[in-house]
């Protein structure tokens, strides 16, 4: 009898396998875009607009051309002659590549220089003389729709104002009727400030056009290389088979590296014109002021409540600020992403949501920053409204949530905005969290401390996030359906290579995809190599963002492994000289049902696929699977934070952070926990310090790491994680759900709720994020709400 394989030992499902990719990163042997040098490579730098809104009177680049070592100066006028001054966005709008008529935000790309050396290119950018005629500036939606506001997008025919869209979802009339029945109506106005994903590595590309082969190879910082290939083919009108996009190691993405940026386009055109490789590496200021921002949305929310705490209806009106071009990266059917995923975890009969999107003189983007398309805003609004409603009712924060949860036996559950949630144990997660934080004891301690003038607070947030777009019926980007793919080749010695259409940026795909194959085939994970990011070798996929890798590409890895297993079964039957029906499978081995000690390993089947296949069987052991998920996956989490606020300074410290995440089956628990801790840190950052704002002239405040504050090891609190609640996804092949973003999505409200809770009785209903000490101090001192909407005061 053979010994059954120990799945954990071979690095299968559930093993906290050490990461494969670490071997190169800890040696400084990663291969990021800026690490690549090609023979004859030139360097590109971008000249950006210092003004937020201005007509371009003239551009004189003659002094730049005169600098030795300069090969090319590109301006909007030159781009226009090739029909490349404008490009389509991911939301069916257009975006300037290099400005021709006017600049519409501070930091907009005006010209670029290609030179022998980046220092020379920078010198030459400074030598370009641009004359501007300043125009009035708009920095928020209120200004955008005000009477007499200048039209920012006067380049567009039929655009008479600054409104991009009016979008609504839900049942307006039913919601109105429910509000008429309410005992209590709870209202809350909030601003979720503009933020920036800000991976430490900025964006960049190396375009390499080879005239002899007509092939364009682009190394670039992209989370979605196949989408980029399609975009280049359609925009630059190059044949798709002559375009190869390679996404090497990526130094963090968080949504920032999904869109197409002007820098990529200019480096490609420059390489075609000069027939030499052209490298563009953005600096930090360029990254922060011009590339995909996130959030920047205003809520006017109302909740209709019965006296006993039952929620009867929710009404949300939002105003979203999209900057100068509507370039949100999101499924095309949903103008404001999945904002309508709000309240999916609560049993609410009817709801209505509307959103007006406006242009402003700010950078475009609207990327899904560590979230599944505006889900972060949805959960923040939801949990801030839940806190305000419980306070208005005089109910306990935990009990109010518990009584409104969708119950475990109510699945599948149709949310008031039309999503179908399929699984979860919401009350159980809450119980685990409350126990871990010591809820009753903390409330007693809080009351006692208050008598002595100390301000303690506790904030609860729950979240359920729709992760893993498609299905393809509902979700597409620019018409391309949102599925994903995996390609598996098992070599004759039983070693294998798996490739997917996703592209990790730190999530550990090279480790976890092998674990899924290992779980399905019993091949040790160390015998499987994972490759992603090269469009010439990887199967077509939509890339990695919105926590979609495990739900979609990960599912494809499982499905392709099953195809391989089906063929291996035929090979096993042939080797064992029995019919296929008599063959049973256990991890890594087929055996004869009636004689279990007679079997063949998956490795022996692999060898047979190349050396001893039955007559008529196609040789080889490889396959591809395209996976179109039947639904999104719905992880659930409860985050509970306790804080102490210093009443003298407004500074607040985190006492305890408890996270209870139910993300279904965990492929690699170590990696899952790493994702949760990273998300909690970004949540803390947004609640505490991290935001991008603007003054009245449209100057970006937050254009470098001295103004755009990110937490360090010193400020970041410790985290207590709980994994005891596991509700497998009913439709995912291995029961997994997305996890990468949950804590960043659900966390911010928990921090804010904790600080607001600490100020209870002071008449403070809201302080807009980030809860900077001066804002908290102002709320405590003047007993009033504090808004954070731009423009900021000049003395800030």
């Amino acid at each position, binding site marked *: 009898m053979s010994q059954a394989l120990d799945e954990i030992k071979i690095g299968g499902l559930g093993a906290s396998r050490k990461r494969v990719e670490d071997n190169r990163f800890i040696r400084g042997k990663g291969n*990021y875009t*800026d690490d690549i040098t090609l023979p004859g490579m030139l360097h590109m730098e971008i000249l950006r607009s210092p003004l937020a809104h201005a007509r371009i009177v003239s551009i004189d680049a003659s002094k730049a051309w005169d600098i030795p070592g300069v090969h090319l100066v590109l301006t909007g006028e030159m781009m226009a002659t090739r029909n490349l001054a404008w490009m389509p966005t991911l939301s069916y709008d257009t975006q300037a590549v290099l400005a021709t008529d006017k600049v519409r935000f501070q930091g907009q790309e005006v010209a670029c220089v290609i030179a022998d050396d980046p220092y020379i290119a920078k010198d030459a950018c400074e030598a370009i003389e641009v004359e501007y005629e300043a125009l009035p500036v708009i920095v928020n939606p209120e200004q955008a729709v005000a009477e007499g506001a200048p039209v920012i997008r006067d380049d567009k025919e039929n655009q008479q104002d600054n409104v991009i869209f009016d979008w609504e979802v839900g049942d307006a009339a039913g919601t109105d009727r429910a509000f008429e029945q309410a005992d209590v109506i709870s209202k809350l106005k909030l601003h979720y400030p503009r933020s920036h994903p800000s991976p*430490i590595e900025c964006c960049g590309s190396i375009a390499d056009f080879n005239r002899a082969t007509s092939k364009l190879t682009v190394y670039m910082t992209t989370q979605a290389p196949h989408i980029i290939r399609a975009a280049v083919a359609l925009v630059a009108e190059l044949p798709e088979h002559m375009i190869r996009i390679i996404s090497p*190691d990526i130094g963090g993405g968080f949504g920032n590296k999904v869109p197409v940026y002007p820098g990529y386009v200019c480096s490609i055109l420059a390489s075609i014109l000069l027939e030499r490789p052209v490298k563009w590496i953005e600096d930090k200021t360029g990254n922060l002021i011009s590339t995909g921002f996130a959030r920047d949305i205003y809520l006017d929310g109302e909740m209709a409540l019965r006296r006993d705490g039952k929620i009867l209806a929710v009404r949300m009106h939002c105003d979203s600020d999209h900057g100068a071009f509507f370039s949100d990266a999101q499924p095309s059917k949903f103008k404001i992403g999945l904002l309508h995923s709000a309240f999916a975890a609560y049993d609410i009969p009817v709801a209505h949501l509307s959103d007006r999107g406006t242009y402003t003189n700010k950078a475009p983007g609207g990327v899904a920053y560590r979230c599944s398309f505006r889900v972060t805003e949805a959960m923040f609004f939801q949990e801030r409204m839940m806190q305000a409603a419980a306070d208005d009712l005089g109910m306990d924060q935990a009990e109010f949530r518990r009584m409104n949860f969708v119950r475990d036996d109510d699945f599948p559950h149709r949310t008031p905005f039309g999503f179908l949630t399929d699984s979860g144990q919401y009350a159980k997660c809450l119980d685990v969290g409350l126990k871990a934080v010591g809820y009753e004891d903390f409330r007693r301690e809080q009351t006692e401390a208050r008598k002595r003038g100390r301000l303690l607070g506790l904030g609860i947030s729950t979240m359920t996030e729709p992760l893993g777009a498609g299905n393809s019926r509902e979700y597409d980007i620019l018409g391309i359906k949102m599925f994903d793919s995996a390609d598996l080749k098992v070599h004759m010695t039983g070693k294998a290579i798996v490739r997917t259409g996703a592209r990790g940026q*730190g999530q550990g795909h090279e480790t976890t995809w092998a674990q899924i194959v290992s779980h399905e085939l019993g091949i040790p994970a160390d015998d499987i190599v994972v490759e992603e990011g090269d469009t010439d070798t990887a199967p077509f996929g939509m890339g990695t963002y919105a926590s979609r890798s495990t739900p979609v590409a990960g599912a494809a890895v499982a499905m392709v492994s099953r195809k391989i297993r089906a063929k291996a079964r035929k090979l096993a039957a042939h080797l064992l000289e029995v019919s296929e029906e008599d063959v049973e499978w256990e991890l890594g081995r087929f055996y004869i049902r009636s004689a279990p000690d007679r079997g063949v390993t998956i490795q022996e089947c692999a060898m047979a696929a190349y050396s001893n296949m039955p007559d008529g069987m196609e040789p080889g052991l490889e396959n591809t699977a395209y996976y179109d998920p039947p639904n999104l996956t719905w992880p659930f989490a409860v985050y509970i934070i306790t804080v102490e606020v210093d009443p003298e300074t407004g500074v607040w410290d985190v006492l305890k952070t408890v996270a209870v995440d139910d993300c279904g089956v965990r492929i690699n628990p170590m990696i899952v*926990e790493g994702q949760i801790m*990273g998300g909690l840190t970004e949540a803390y950052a947004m609640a505490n310090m991290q935001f991008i704002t603007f003054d009245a002239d449209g100057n970006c405040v937050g254009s470098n790491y001295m103004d755009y504050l990110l937490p*360090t090891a010193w400020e970041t609190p410790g985290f207590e994680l709980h994994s005891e609640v596991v509700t497998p996804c009913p439709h995912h092949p291995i029961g997994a759900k997305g996890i990468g973003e949950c804590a960043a999505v659900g966390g911010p409200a928990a921090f804010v709720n904790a600080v607001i809770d600490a100020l209870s009785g002071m008449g403070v209903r809201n302080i807009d994020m980030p809860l900077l000490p001066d804002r908290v101090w102002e709320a405590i001192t003047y007993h009033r709400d504090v808004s954070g909407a731009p423009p900021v005061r000049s003395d800030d």
Partner: protein
Amino acid sequence: MTIVYEDQDGQAASDIPARRIKFVINGQKMIAEVEPRLLLSHLIRRGLALTGTHMGCDTTNCGACTVLVDGRPVKSCTMLAVQADGHEISTVEGLATASELHPLQEGFKEEHGLQCGFCTPGMMMAAKALLDANPDPTEEDVRWALSGNLCRCTGYQNIVKSVLWAAAKLRAESGEA
């Protein structure tokens, strides 16, 4: 850095000022001709092709470019190459020997102290300076020593554990010795 220019109207590469510097990097003695304005980080990355030293922000904030100069952690994007004249530099490539990883490298892998890996070399160099000076740091010591280095992926908790793991291993090794 060697740059070859097209000679336009008598202006040529010879007009570019250059300075000769001598330094030691990862134990190897070197000579370089550099523009006076060249950043140390660019000398390391482009001149010496040691691309493990990363550049994140150009403004001394993120710490991805941290190297050791005479044993002290320095953000190499804010030091000029000419200032390295006569000094000794260590980068991430100098941490491991041919056969053996440095305990910090092992610790980061063991404790899942990295995700995208971009901040990791700078983190490890800053941590090395700490452990060289203080072989038995507290968690607070580690957090303070790394507070000049930004990470967007991990939330730092595992980075701190990685450094403490390395400290324990180094202490055990020196106890054996």
